[in-house]
């Protein structure tokens, strides 16, 4: 059936090879340019592990300490490198442990391919040992999934998996392979997939729509750009910068758009959303043309839709047709790849500078600086703030690090204050908000960009969800810098309890272990800071280390992250305190 539905190009490997399904899987991965995978072995995937042993000089397998870690590592790798991440696991519990990573990759459009072992075909549906319906379970959280029950299917299906994962709006694909298909032999022949007839990954933007969009932008008095991860996935960073500079349009990032544009660029005005910057949120409701590029108007970005940018004409550049007019109605939808759309739009755009309008962002920034930023970055109170730690990391890394964050207050603070001068440098779980993401994602991020400094900033809660990956870091000598901002609370939930549940701190106070001893137990260099006077030196020492390094910073226990749009409120009603 696959030959009917998939187009193929002949590759330079016409001669047939008679090999096992398990070996074929390795050849497929190699043919796709994969040299690194993450995973965890078990009964139903053992034939593949046996082949991995034989091919270890060409294909590195990293044993994470939990399958969830393997998926997040694959995600971190994919996000930093722009390539497809790969994770493998056994059937049953191995497969179900992938679900969180799949869901995260699905909502954050991350290209990963997961391969799971499955009980032999003749046992399917019999509740055999470690049988689980991972196709059924993973359907809502995958871009595509497929169960292979015959060895001959392997090459075409894996080719299709990689094609689907990385094309169009990227996403996770899961291929479940029964054990008999791994053992059985096939005539191996690999052809990369070039297309699937029922799937059109990228639409083409019409000239008329580009003209209409350009006309709107050219006559706008207060145009405003909000850019998301689509810019990074579409490799459209340069085109975005050109548009911003040519038309003099202030631009703000969504949490996943961060790092697509230099954070120090004068027209890069800050972050939108619940804990974004003051001006970018408030002025959303004052712009006359809102140009949304590669973002999907998530509810954490828009707040109440009834009061979101109602005065503005909306231009929505988006690759996924299902995202257009889903949350915010677009006056002009430019359905396609961000790079192509922007480069065709640029010649139609008139030079402009919009000084007065840009000044409004400046004034709002000054207000936010006085009320919030100064206190975060240059506090005068005794306790350490998360903001000043992030600022020290900026200084020590000269804005060049990949920053991986977990979920909670520290994440919002990092996405507000971390500075970036390179794209693909902000790795965080945006759409799903997966605590436990950062430590394993940092493993993938480091391996996707070995030459770069990778700093994981994690809360004391989320850290303990995937803390076992310290062993993976040590075993593979990955010089990741791990910073735990310890407030002895599930800080973000505690903040909500304080603000909206009259400080009833239900199950958000944590009695924590000695994190330094734990890191040392995993053979890592470790340090702890609890006073301001020691912070700079400790951060510098950590960054200077050539080895993995753990730094615990004891921060103020009950600090809140501001500004904040209370959930369901309007972006105009953002609170500075």
């Amino acid at each position, binding site marked *: 059936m696959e030959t009917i539905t998939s*187009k193929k190009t002949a590759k330079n490997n016409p001669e047939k090879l008679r090999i096992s399904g398990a070996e074929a899987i390795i050849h497929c991965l190699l043919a796709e340019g994969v040299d690194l995978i993450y995973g965890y072995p078990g009964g139903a995937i053992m034939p593949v592990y046996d082949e991995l042993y034989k091919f270890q000089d060409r294909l590195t397998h990293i044993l994470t300490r939990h399958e969830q870690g393997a998926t997040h590592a694959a995600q971190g790798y994919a996000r930093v490198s722009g390539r497809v991440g790969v994770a493998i696991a056994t059937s049953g519990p191995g497969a179900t442990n992938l679900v969180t990573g799949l869901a995260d990759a699905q909502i954050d459009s991350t290209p990963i391919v997961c391969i799971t072992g499955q009980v032999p075909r003749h046992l399917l549906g019999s509740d055999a040992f470690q049988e689980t319906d991972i196709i059924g379970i993973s359907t809502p959280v995958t871009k595509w999934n497929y169960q292979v029950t015959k060895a001959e299917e392997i090459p075409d299906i894996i080719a299709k998996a990689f094609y*689907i994962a990385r094309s169009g709006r990227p996403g996770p694909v899961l291929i479940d392979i029964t054990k008999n298909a791994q053992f059985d032999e096939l005539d191996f022949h690999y052809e990369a997939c070039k297309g699937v007839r029922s799937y059109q990954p990228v639409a083409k933007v019409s000239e008329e729509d580009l003209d209409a969009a350009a006309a709107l932008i050219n006559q706008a008095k207060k145009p405003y750009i909000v850019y998301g991860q689509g810019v990074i996935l579409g490799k459209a960073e340069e085109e975005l910068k050109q548009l911003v500079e040519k038309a003099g349009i202030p631009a703000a990032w969504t949490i996943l758009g961060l790092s697509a544009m230099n954070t120090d660029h004068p027209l890069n005005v800050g972050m939108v959303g619940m804990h974004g910057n003051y001006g970018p949120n408030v002025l959303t409701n004052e712009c006359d043309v809102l140009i949304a590029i590669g973002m999907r108007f998530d509810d954490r970005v828009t707040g109440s839709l009834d009061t979101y940018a109602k005065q503005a004409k909306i231009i929505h550049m988006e690759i996924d047709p*299902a995202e257009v007019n889903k949350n915010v109605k677009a006056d002009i939808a430019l359905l396609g790849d961000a790079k192509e759309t922007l480069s065709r739009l640029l010649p139609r755009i008139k030079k402009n500078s919009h000084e007065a309008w840009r000044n409004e962002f400046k004034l709002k920034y000054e207000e936010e600086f006085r009320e919030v930023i100064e206190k975060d970055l240059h506090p005068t109170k005794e306790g350490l703030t998360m903001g000043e730690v992030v600022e020290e990391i900026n200084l020590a890394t000269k804005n060049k690090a990949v920053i991986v964050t977990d979920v909670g207050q520290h994440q919002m603070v990092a996405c507000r204050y971390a500075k970036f001068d390179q794209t693909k440098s902000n790795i965080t779980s945006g759409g799903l908000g997966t605590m436990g993401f950062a430590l394993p994602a940092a493993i993938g991020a480091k391996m996707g960009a070995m030459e770069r400094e990778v700093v994981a900033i994690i809360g004391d809660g989320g850290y303990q969800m995937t803390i076992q990956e310290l062993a993976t870091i040590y075993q593979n000598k990955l010089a990741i810098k791990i910073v735990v901002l310890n407030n002895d609370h599930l800080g973000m939930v505690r903040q909500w309890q304080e603000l909206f549940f009259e400080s009833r701190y239900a199950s958000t106070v944590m009695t924590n272990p000695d994190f330094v001893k734990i890191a040392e137990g995993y053979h890592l260099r470790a340090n702890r800071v609890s006073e301001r006077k020691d912070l700079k030196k400790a951060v510098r020492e950590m960054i200077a280390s050539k080895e993995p390094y753990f730094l615990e910073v004891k921060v103020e226990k009950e600090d809140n992250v501001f500004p904040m749009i209370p959930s369901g409120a309007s972006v105009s009603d953002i609170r500075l305190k």
Partner: protein
Amino acid sequence: MEKKWFTISVYSENNVGLLNRISGIFLKRHINIEGLNVSKSEIEHVSKFTIVVFTTEDWTRKIVAQIEKQIEVIKAFYHTDEEIIYQESALFKIASHLLFDERQIQNIIKESNSQIVTVSREFFVLAKTGRRHEIDEMHDQLEPYGILQFVRSGRIAVTKASMPITAMLNAYENQE
């Protein structure tokens, strides 16, 4: 926004998992599927799902976009009742003696334009094809006499406008 009946037509590749994928989209939005029919279509190897929902046009449009996004879906459309020709069919199983004891039943059979599919000593089976309300009417008329079994199919529909699926598939094949 006003709720209405919408018929969603989905052209897709044959795939075991696809029904699950499609129904999951309705599940996520808590929309009840009022009718579902899967069959082959006018194109070889292409299946057609006909799904009936009662909801707003806005939601229907969003659901259709999310259905169409699934890899194996070739194209999905939605239509109002005015834009399609549609039918459902139903089977009624009724005790045979009623055919002779209750003269009114013979009138119902005649007036409803239904057919007797089979007759045995114990029971006979009536088949009725038509609009939902016609089947409902017939059901209401027969009910007082006792219906042993009743079943109604999902809606099947063809559109008044043409469906450009073959052209789409040809365009794909000729792309190179």
